[in-house]
């Protein structure tokens, strides 16, 4: 069991409010990822759930029980840190068994549980080594193993992969996903890496300045961002945002052609992702522009098209592109994929 509920949670450091009233329900067994730019409060929120930071206002329930005032050790949560926080003087076995030993578990039980966790994490050959003799990925696995052994209600991960190199990161990401499938435990995962968020999460929580900007599945966030912040934060390269105006059932772009508009409220910004624009002859589609430069990446090419008053628009071309800098093109926006935002930046 590991249902976690945050009720109007706030965090104040003196007069500075870092978390500005967060309500969130996390279901048992769910994989939740907190993302946001640095300083958005994602790590603070995680540490408040873990009990490492006090909750200034609001309450925290775990499995329906109010644990706001309880110390970390009573909440039954297991935190995995970016720095691993392994004990350098202990072997892998002792590191993993530390929690059980402090709880006074019998030796046989400790050995059994440590071995079981080691098997799951493929750490069997390293049980007698010390942390310094392990690779970064192995250390992270030991840190996870130390938590598994205690059968926690939920796992809290604080940027666990950010100290690993790119290849290891992909591998460990895959292993964490598999671990979640196998343990079926609630996991809350903080990261600034979008790809980790998109691929791991059941639901993503996007934070901005201590406020939840949007909560939803990766698909919801990518396809229907609730506001300009989420639209630009999720996706790489970024969604193109253009100034626009609407009148009745059509939208207009300054110095270019518009299209149909369905929503009731007027919009001031149009968002379109690079992969939802097709390139054609000048005069076709929504606007014209001149190719500024082309980035060839192999699987795709990204063209930055200078559209005058509209600004520079990034367009994805699958595979290679015959276009080169200086050529004139027309850009057609996929009408199904347009996002519109009002003057406050909210989706219309």
């Amino acid at each position, binding site marked *: 069991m590991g249902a976690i509920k945050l009720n109007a949670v706030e965090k104040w450091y003196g007069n500075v409010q870092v978390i500005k009233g967060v309500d969130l329900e996390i279901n048992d067994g769910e994989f939740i990822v907190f993302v946001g730019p640095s300083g958005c409060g994602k790590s603070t929120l995680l540490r408040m759930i*873990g*009990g*490492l930071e006090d909750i200034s206002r609001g309450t925290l329930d775990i499995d329906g029980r109010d644990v706001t005032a309880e*110390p*970390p*050790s009573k909440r039954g*949560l*297991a*935190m995995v*840190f970016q*720095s*691993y*926080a*392994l*004990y*350098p*003087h202990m072997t892998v076995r002792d590191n993993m068994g*530390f*929690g059980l030993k*402090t*709880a006074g578990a019998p030796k046989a039980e400790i050995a059994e549980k440590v071995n079981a966790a080691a098997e799951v994490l493929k750490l069997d050959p390293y049980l007698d080594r*010390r*942390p*310094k003799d392990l690779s970064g990925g192995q*250390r992270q696995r030991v840190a996870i193993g*130390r938590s598994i052994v*205690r059968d926690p209600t939920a796992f809290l991960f604080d940027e666990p992969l950010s100290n690993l190199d790119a290849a290891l990161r992909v591998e460990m990401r895959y292993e964490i996903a598999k671990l979640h499938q196998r343990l079926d435990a609630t996991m809350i995962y903080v990261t600034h890496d979008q790809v980790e968020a998109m691929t791991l999460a059941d639901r993503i929580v996007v934070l901005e300045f201590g406020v939840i900007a949007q909560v939803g599945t990766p698909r919801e966030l990518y396809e229907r961002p609730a506001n300009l912040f989420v639209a630009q934060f999720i996706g790489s390269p970024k969604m193109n945002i253009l100034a626009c105006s609407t009148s009745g059932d059509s939208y207009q772009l300054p110095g270019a052609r518009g299209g149909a508009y369905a929503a009731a409220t007027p919009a001031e910004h149009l968002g379109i992702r690079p992969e939802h624009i097709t390139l054609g002859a000048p005069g076709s589609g929504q606007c014209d522009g001149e190719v500024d430069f082309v980035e060839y990446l192999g699987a795709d090419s990204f063209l930055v098209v200078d559209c005058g008053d509209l600004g520079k628009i990034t367009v994805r071309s699958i595979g290679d592109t015959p276009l080169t800098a200086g050529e004139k093109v027309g850009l057609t926006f996929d009408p199904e994929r347009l996002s519109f935002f009002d003057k406050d930046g909210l989706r219309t």
Partner: protein
Amino acid sequence: MRLINRIPNRPGAVLLAALPFVLLLVAYSVASDIRLTANPSDKLLPAPSTIAATAERLFTEPDRRSKEILLWNDTVASLARLMGGVGISALLSLVIGLAIGLLPYARSLFSSFIAVLSMVPPLALLPILFIVFGLGETSKVVLIVIGITPFMTRDLAQRVLEIPKEQIVKAQTLGASTAVIALRVALPQILPRLISNVRLSLGSAWLFLIAAEAVASNVGLGYRIFLVRRYLAMDVILTYVIWITLLAFIIDWLLKTLSRRAFPWMEAGL
């Protein structure tokens, strides 16, 4: 090619390293020779052969009156004082350092007191120690303790504070009490540092020992050096100086070896 990039080859490096020692020896021999030629009874720069003969006599021949070999008596007395002082300091600094590093209350209580204490030049306290504890062994050991404990304590406390916060937090979420954290998480990690602190402090400990022995004692390496100064017995003094240096070197080497053997997980530990 710039001087900065000129690297001596292997035999050249060895030769260069030996050069200052050789030069010192040659300069001494020549100076000694000149003085002794002018005045054969000159005691200021005894010939190297005289020093060797004196050293042999000091290490092997018993004193006529006491029938004991004074150098060994001096060594045993001095080392006992040194070990006593350093041992007490190590224990004190370990306990107080752990407390300061882990417990905010202890930190408030002790840290400024120790900071002020470490500003007092311990040798200035020596007369007070003599008056309070008398001229016996106690005042010598206490001088060493007063002299090196503040530094060691502050350094160990600092080291405890440098243990990543996450390790302490993790131990707490794993249910460890303050005592368990102190004994199983913090203590093992500062033990290597304790040894390196002892190694660093031994130089000062020797100074305090020699100073105390010079001022008031009747046995000990420092006492003997300052005693024979009155007779300008340079050969004896030089033997004692070389012997003390050798002892310091051996103790340092033993501690270094101990540290490497006992804490193999130390280097580059994360």
